[in-house]
């Protein structure tokens, strides 16, 4: 297990390094922070001075290595746009994103898995066909359009949920949370549903195909023959066996939700990190974009690691040496 962890750490280090080079060089080539920040009434002298204060007048290699040596010391630099250290900027927006991501994943699992098992067990029923049709639709709707549709239906026509923003929050351990607050929850619901629809469809399909496969296994036939009651059969024998792909996908999807729910956050004006990323790309705020993506790489590494450990817990045959 220890060597497995060490190997993983080594790989992650290389990954982070490659990522930092790609993003840093990409942002350098594409945009010029001085051109974005300086208004039209800047004189050329002001622009040159600004470039030197931001440190963007130095050669690319020098800029990159100074960034790298700072990063090793835990300093991700200062945002060009907000003039604030990058790390707190990202961290203070993280809870908002995490909350919605977990809620969306939760909805996805709680709705998707039962639906999938139901469809897998009752393949011939009309309701199964309807579920299958709906998941195809849910898969294919562009996230962006779906978000606007949700706003139109629930906020504009029915007027039951707010269209955007975060609403009231509750402070818990110094973190602002919407979960424990009725207004906050109401604001959270639409973005979470928007993210969850795709997840529901995916979990339904995964659970259904898993169920169909497992139900015809010999051990299931045997268990049935032995007279194990159906609820126990589903819980003990079916669910456990279909969980491995579901856990893998959930882990990766959680990462995806945290890292790239930019569209949903933008449409709902949800003050999370996805919106920050998009705004920062717009403003050529390189330190934020680079730090953000590096943190995301690190997060994926951790999630994958957790997923691997969960495998071992779910399937005793898997051992890491």
């Amino acid at each position, binding site marked *: 297990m220890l060597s497995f962890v060490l190997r993983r750490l080594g790989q992650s280090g290389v990954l982070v390094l490659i990522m930092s080079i790609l993003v840093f060089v990409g942002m350098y080539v*594409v*945009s*010029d922070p*001085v*051109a*974005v*920040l*300086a*208004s*039209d*009434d*800047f*004189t*050329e*002298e*002001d*622009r040159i*001075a*600004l470039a030197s*204060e*931001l440190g963007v007048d130095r050669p690319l290699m020098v800029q990159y290595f100074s960034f790298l040596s700072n990063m090793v010391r835990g300093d991700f630099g*200062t945002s060009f*746009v*907000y*003039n*604030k250290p990058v790390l707190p900027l990202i961290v*203070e*927006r993280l809870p*908002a994103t995490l909350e919605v991501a977990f809620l969306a994943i939760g909805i996805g699992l709680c709705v998707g898995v039962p639906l999938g098992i139901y469809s897998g067990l009752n393949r011939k029923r009309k309701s199964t066909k309807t579920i299958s049709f709906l998941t195809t639709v849910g898969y294919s709707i562009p996230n962006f359009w779906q*978000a*606007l549709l949700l*706003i*139109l239906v629930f*906020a*504009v026509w029915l*007027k039951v949920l*707010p*269209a*955007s*923003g*975060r609403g009231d929050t509750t402070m818990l351990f110094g973190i602002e949370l919407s979960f424990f607050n009725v207004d906050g929850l109401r604001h959270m619901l639409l973005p979470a549903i928007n993210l969850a629809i795709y997840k529901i469809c995916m979990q339904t399909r995964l659970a259904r195909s898993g169920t169909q496969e497992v139900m015809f296994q010999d051990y299931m036939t045997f268990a049935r023959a032995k007279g194990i009651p159906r609820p126990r059969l589903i819980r003990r024998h079916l669910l456990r066996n279909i969980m491995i792909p579901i856990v893998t996908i959930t882990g990766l999807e959680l990462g995806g939700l945290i890292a790239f729910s930019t569209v949903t956050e*933008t*449409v*709902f*004006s949800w*003050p999370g990190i996805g919106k920050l990323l998009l*705004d920062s*790309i*717009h*403003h*050529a705020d390189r330190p934020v974009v680079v730090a953000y993506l590096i943190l995301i790489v690190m997060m994926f590494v951790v999630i994958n690691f957790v997923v691997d450990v969960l495998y071992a817990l779910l399937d005793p045959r898997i051992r890491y040496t």
Partner: protein
Amino acid sequence: MKKTLTTLAAAAALMVGGGAQAEVLRMAYSSAPRSVDPYPFGGATTAGYKEHIYEALVGHDDQPLLSTGWTWNSPTSLTVHLREGVSFHNGEPFTARDVVYSACRMMFKIDDKRNLLTSSMGPLTDVVAEGDHAVRFETKNPYPLWIQKMKFLSILSASGGDVPDGPITYDATGDCGITAYPTRDDFENGDAAIGTGPFKHVSFAKEFAVMERNDDYWGEASKWEGVEISSVSNSGARFAGLLAGDYDLIENPTNEDITALDGDDDFDFSGKPAWRTMFVVLDVNAEGAPGVTAADGSAPLANAKVRHAMSLAINRDAITDRLFGGNATPANQYAPSYRAGAPEMPALEYDADKAKALLAEAGYPDGFTLQFNAPSDRYPNGTRVAQALAQYWSRIGITVELNTQPWSVFAKARRAREMGAFFYGWGHPQGPAQMISFAFATRDKDLGLGSSNYSNYSSEAFDAAIKAWAVETDAAKADEHVGNAMRAAMADMPGIPVYYTHSLWAHRADLTVDGRQDERTSAFMVSYK
């Protein structure tokens, strides 16, 4: 008796609208204010937010605000007379010392980074308090533009704990003997967000700002008890938020939104011609321009006839009517024709045949190839206008290759002068000559002219007029110079003015919006019908 009155008032309120009218105005901006600290950032959004809290010596309408007037001692020395009886949100009286302090703070580099508004300070060399109610500004060169620039110098209270007692002496580093300036956090948590404005800071976090009325405001207090500003960058979501009742007013609705409001009883929209000219910048360099090629290897854009032909080819009325539904004004010069001080100019002609003939006369009967660049995410309808322009030019035989790209990429190419022809919008908060002085003057470091001359234009007549304007402290004479400069530039056409944008707001139908021309959105312009 008092109780009876209250009851009556409550009953009346109930009868009027089925409930009391909300007294907090909820507005949705299209982008986020960047800071509570008034100096680090400019831009209409940040400026619109902060003018609720802070005021400057000169107001948005070029009229005295925290001042009562000014006198020129000499072309390089201006005395501004301060308004008396004004106090800050913390109760401290407003005096000349606060102005000096604010000027110091503007110049001071926090973490070795300049405030982006520092460029507004121009050639300022000294700020001196003359008693409690007058301040003298000294500049290196004659700098009449300072009257306009004073709008950017938001006045902060010099009463913080780190400001030593007694007079403050200005110096260009902003050090001024002040031990420590408030930090960004001090502003965001409200400790340092102390101005003289009609609203007080309550909170500002992650793009959501809350303010409450300043009941001791020196002018007429606002009718709104409070203001909430959200920022919703996605236009569809912003509009949906209005319809859902999350906001009372949103800025920058799209044309489609406005069409959708047609016949709606609950919501309405208001517009106001704004101080922004949308124009095409042409690189008139005689040695050729990037992305512009002619069969004979010559530089077509260097020929004024070609530039006039390109202007003649554009049907400006069609653009403003069809693409903007009338919510834009055809341009006839570089500054908005309705900007105070802009000269009278004739409308620009549309005649495709004449354009073709002129192009042939210039030596390009078969046209030439032009790469035309436009930012895709910067201006409302910008991409569609760029497409329309490309089509108009194609009709007179120019082969146009349209290249639209995100603003951050576009801005880099512009600064690197990689574009021979591009679409651009220039605001005019500092008067009608501001843009042409930067965009078309031959570079002059001392007078700060020509720093954004991407046209590579240079004309003696124009330079003479703009230089005369740059040092003229007499307003009437300055306007005359602006007229001369404008006419000289329009005759040569180093850029093609297309239209002036309008600011638009969509809002609840029971509100009226008395919009402003400076593209800002503020609670002062909104009231109940």
